[in-house]
């Protein structure tokens, strides 16, 4: 909150010298979002957004209510009240094809130690489970088995009817922070510094019992694991508080690659590292990943990094993409990357191939730091190589969206309707392509004219 104040205050006087933060100014020709709609319904921090279908999404946050919105019009469709405390996880429960009930369901977990199943079409509370020992922090749906798992201090397996199928013993007091599904009926849970692999035993001919077995614990991370995502069919990736990124083989759970130091602070900071850490304790924690076929995009502290899976190296980065920690990133189809941050802004980046020959203005300061960073610690052999051929790509800032007055927690991208952001200032903002909206309005207008019989087309 305070951070953007400072950042915002600095912005007008070109702060290029003062801070390495890249700014774009007021002229943003590539930024398509020229219209916004502020949606107000929440009374506290809005932390989660989840897409329901092509035009609807649900938002949830610390006020315990879930709101279903129309992404096109910004209309509030439903307000789901049921939780008494803040919502800690939300996930859609896709209906099965065979299932007669076609309504879209969502699951929400809350700090009041309940999980509620909602019908998003009617706003009905379908079912409520309140037998949890601890707050459920993450939810995952295994659609293949038509079951869902809840992760708190232990891991529970539920079927669609909300029968508890099986559960693990108490895992830790901090609880499971992330869960993903991997092949062979396994799930990976991030518990503190550990990754635990569980296997689900499905009912077979002999036993009708479900069971969940701990298979393996992976202890490669030095600090708490903050993010855990599936990258593709072959690997998943984890990121920790101290900036370690490990890419795992999804089948045998071995480390495929790890990056942990390239985003370390530059050497001259060594002396004053204490202070530095005090100032920005989250500076290098990995908050979020996103991926496409070739790359993993990591939100590391205030920066953005693009890690190429094939080259196994970072191909582009923005060391200070934001004034404050980046909380969520997403890759758009058109080589664009969107990031949102605690500083209250959302930025749109484009991954560009760097033309080595073209005399492009190079942010020198950044490269120097990069070089020093390489020298700094263990990774000594690739230093020269790195310096010779610097990252082949670059992240260019093509636009920023300023609207929230506090940390932007998450955003959701709709192909047709634009971008939805939610924030700690209790607001949700719908960012739209003004031109397209204008066209849509015209379309509507002429449709209405036609309906009223007022449209006279000349021959």
């Amino acid at each position, binding site marked *: 909150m305070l951070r*953007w*104040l400072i950042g*915002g*205050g600095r*912005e*007008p006087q070109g702060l290029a010298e003062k801070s390495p933060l890249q700014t774009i*100014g*007021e*002229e*943003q*020709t590539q*930024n398509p979002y*020229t*219209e*916004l*709609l*502020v949606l*107000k319904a929440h009374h506290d921090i809005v932390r989660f957004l989840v897409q329901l279908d092509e035009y609807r999404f649900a938002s949830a946050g610390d006020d315990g209510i879930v709101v279903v919105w129309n992404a096109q*019009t*910004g209309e509030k469709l439903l307000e789901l009240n049921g939780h008494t405390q803040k919502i800690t996880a939300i996930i859609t429960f896709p209906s099965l094809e065979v299932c007669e009930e076609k309504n879209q369901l969502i699951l929400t977990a809350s700090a009041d130690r309940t999980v509620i199943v909602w019908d998003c079409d009617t706003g009905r509370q379908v079912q409520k489970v309140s037998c949890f020992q601890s707050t459920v922090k993450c939810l995952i749906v295994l659609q293949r088995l038509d079951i869902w798992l809840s992760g708190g201090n232990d891991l529970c397996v539920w079927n669609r009817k909300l029968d508890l199928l099986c559960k693990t013993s108490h895992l830790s007091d901090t609880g499971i922070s992330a869960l993903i599904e991997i092949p062979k009926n396994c799930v990976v849970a991030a518990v503190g510094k550990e990754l635990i692999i569980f296997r689900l035993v499905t009912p077979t001919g002999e036993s009708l019992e479900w069971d969940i077995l701990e298979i393996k614990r992976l202890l490669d991370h030095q600090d708490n694991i903050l993010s855990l995502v599936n990258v593709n069919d072959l690997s998943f990736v984890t990121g920790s508080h101290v900036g370690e990124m490990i890419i795992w083989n999804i089948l045998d759970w071995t480390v495929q690659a790890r990056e942990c130091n390239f985003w370390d602070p530059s050497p001259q900071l060594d002396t004053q590292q204490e202070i530095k850490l005090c100032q920005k304790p989250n500076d290098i924690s990995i908050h979020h990943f996103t991926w496409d076929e070739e790359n993993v995009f990591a939100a590391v502290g205030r920066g953005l990094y693009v890690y190429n899976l094939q080259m196994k190296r970072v191909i582009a980065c923005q060391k200070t993409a934001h004034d404050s920690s980046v909380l969520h990133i997403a890759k758009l189809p058109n080589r664009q990357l969107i990031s949102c941050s605690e500083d209250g802004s959302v930025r749109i980046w484009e991954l560009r191939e760097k033309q080595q020959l073209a005399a492009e203005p190079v942010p020198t300061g950044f490269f120097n730091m990069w070089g020093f960073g390489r020298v700094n610690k263990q990774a000594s052999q690739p230093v020269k190589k790195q310096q010779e051929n610097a990252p082949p790509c670059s992240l260019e800032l093509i*636009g920023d969206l*300023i*609207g*929230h*007055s506090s940390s932007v927690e998450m955003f959701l991208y709709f192909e047709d309707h634009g971008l939805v952001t939610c924030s700690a*200032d209790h*607001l949700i*903002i719908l960012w*739209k392509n*003004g031109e397209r*909206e*204008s*066209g849509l*309005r*015209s*379309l*509507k*207008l*002429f449709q*209405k*004219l036609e309906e009223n019989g*007022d*449209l*006279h*087309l*000349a021959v």
Partner: protein
Amino acid sequence: MISAPDVVAFTKEEEYEEEPYNEPALPEEYSVPLFPFASQGANPWSRLSGAKFSRDFILISEFSEQVGPQPLLTIPNDTKVFGTFDLNYFSLRIMSVDYQASFVGHPPGSAYPKLNFVEDSKVVLGDSKEGAFAYVHHLTLYDLEARGFVRPFCMAYISADQHKIMQQFQELSAEFSKASECLKTGNRKAFAGELEKKLKDLDYTRTVLHTETEIQKKANDKGFYSSQAIEKANELASVEKSIIEHQDLLKQILSYPHRKSKGSALCSAETEHVQDQADQVATTSNPDESADADLYTCRPAYTPKLIKAKSTKCFDKKLKTLEELCDTEYFTQTLAQLSHIEHMFRGDLCYLLTSQIDRALLKQQHITNFLFEDFVEVDDRMVERQESAPPKRSPGRPPSRSLDECPIPQVFISVGSYKSSVESVPIKMEQELGDEEYKEVEVTELSSSDPQENLDCLDMDMKGSISSGESIEVLGTEKSTSVLSKSDSQASLTVPLSPQVVRSKAVSHRTISEDSIEVLSTCPSEALIPDDFKASYPSAINEEESYADDSEGAIHFQASISPPELGEAEEGSLENTLSQTDSSCCIGKESDSLRVPLSTPAHTHSDPDGVVSSPPQRYRQKDQGFHVDFAGENASPSRDNSSEGFPAFELDPSRLLASRDVSKTSLDNYSDTTSNMSSIASTSSDRTPSSAHPTGPSSERHKKRAGQNALKFIRQYPFAHPAIYSLLSGRTLVVLGEDEAIVRKLVTALSIFVPNHSRHAKPVKHWVSSPLHITDFQKWKLIGLQRVTSPAGAGALHTLSRYSRYTSILDLDSKTLRCPLYRGALVPRLADHRTHIKRGSTYYLHVQSVLTQLCSKAFLYTFCHHLHLPAHDRETEELLASRRASFLKLNLGLVNEDMKVVQYLAELLKLHYVQEPPGTGHPTLRFDYVPSFLYKI
């Protein structure tokens, strides 16, 4: 009875239609200097010279069964309004012409008294000796104690202008019908209540008598009845009869609504009137019925008393006052309606007609008029007006009666004379055409079907794209508007071209053909003055002064007559200041302010100093107290220098009396335009705090003030254009300053440029001291922000700079403006800092006219199908975009940023049109990523 020599009975429209009506509503005196009363020092606008009262008023009289005709009250309740006019005499006159008044009684065939539900009668009456003409609306109210249960009343609109009454007959009739309906509804309620009480009394009496008879019966066993007993029995019988009678009456009065609706079906000749009534019923029915319901069910316990069976019909008892006759609530409502009528018909006839046309035209623009018009209460009135409009009523007559007659040429005249600076007429025309246009939305046809806009395009086309510089393009558009006025397209209008238009045609011709110096001498448009002349501008146009003078006169005419129409009761306090101006001059003890608290019936009742009346004594006390309250305000009126030579009424702009002299005087005073405006407008503007009605619908005075301040702003700040552009293009303008009054003043002034999102509220926030939020920019387009010097205030400034892309920031303290560049031609026309316009209201009108023109451009742009949707499938989005751009540029003649203004307005139009119901949807915040610049003085 009483002779009524000058009675003209008009109950039907046709009758006065037949009367040869030769006199144009525009006073001849305006163009002909030979004004009959000129020698008496009256101004040409004073049609009232012959009359003994200073302006129109409403009189309510009663034909009292005790004392005969007597005036009850006047609206405005102010002795100086009717002056020496003999109300008693006039009451006698008007009460003597109730042709229809029929009395209730025992009709031959019926056993019980029947209530007669009499339709109101409406007559026009004149008294040439008194110089008074009146629309008289007779009505009867029921009173159980009155003879035949009825009391005849009448409401009269008294004016010195016969033509006004004649021409406005329909409107007057409609409005007075409402008032009458209100009174009668209240009266029925009260009457029913009275009957109920009476019935209870009778019932009680019967019971008592009955028991007494029983006792007597028991007491004497002698077998014969004493005379006492017989008397009792008789009395009992008469009580019984009385009960039945009263029950019947109650049934009749309760069945009224039913009967009325039946009646309305029968007399279709009266449709219009009935419709009004129906309206009235529709509007009041809900509270009415519920009120009725609870009246008959849960009336507060009434303790019956013993009464005499025979009602006393003696003359010594006090008759009920009007307020008692009608329910207090309804009475108050009626008074409000009457004072609304008084406001509504205030001013000269030609002003009334013009503003009616104005509104009618505005009404036709139902798609665009929400953008800049203040529609809150005009709207509903328009609905009624349309119902009672001539076209509907009398098919034999050309639909646009009011258009055919005087008013339009009149407008033309004023335009002809000051065309250069204010282009109001063409716009009015174009609105009507715009509507036709809307029916055939087609780009290619535009150039042939040609409202004003197309002239623009035509003009642009003729010149091709030779426009070498922007200034020339400005010229082009200005010229084209004048070219328009002679265009053939006007044939489609029923309005004959007045000579003045031809004159202006000539002017514009020359403007086109000859060089700028020549232009200077013929046309005062400053857009045409070359730069070198601009510096010495005031002296350079000296020779033109007389011309300018004339046009000023015309402007004044328009300007000063505008006020009252929109002045609603709620604007009372503003109106007050106005009336105080008079009172200060004519040493009136009471001011119009007495009129304000209509909600309290006490004050509106008869004035102690006023007329005879059947005055309830207790009111007097209150009235006095009230005077004291207002004494303080009266003590400090501001007196105009220019005003002293004139009788009070001449200065009251609401009476359309701004004279040529006044305008001249003020013109002289204006030689230094930056300050010291000595007109009524400025004095009031200085006095009335802008905070009085920050968000309410702006009255005329409000507009005048806003116009004045906007004019000041334009003259004072060289960067007014980009600021206004920001407002027009929907970019929020934040006015930053320390002094609340100054900020508020400027915000009010600038709000005239802010397009509305819907009909309900202007997106203007006059004063905020907390840091702004993104939602504020979505909601407000003009914000007054407090600059706080404390560290806490830094937050507000930080947010401001954070959201700088959504805002333009006008810093009043350091006199800077931060906003995007503006290079269009529209705003310079809208806000020329060298404009000749001196008056706030004139400038306001100028702004309105330019904006209306802009609205029609936006309208055209929005509703051209092929601009927004492909004509066929193969058309790409790019093609559409280029078509849009070329339409904006070539057809609408817009340059650079002007396009964005029209595009923004088009978006608003789309949103408004699509929404169901209009104006309810979320406003979206639209913005552009354009760089801002810092402007300094």
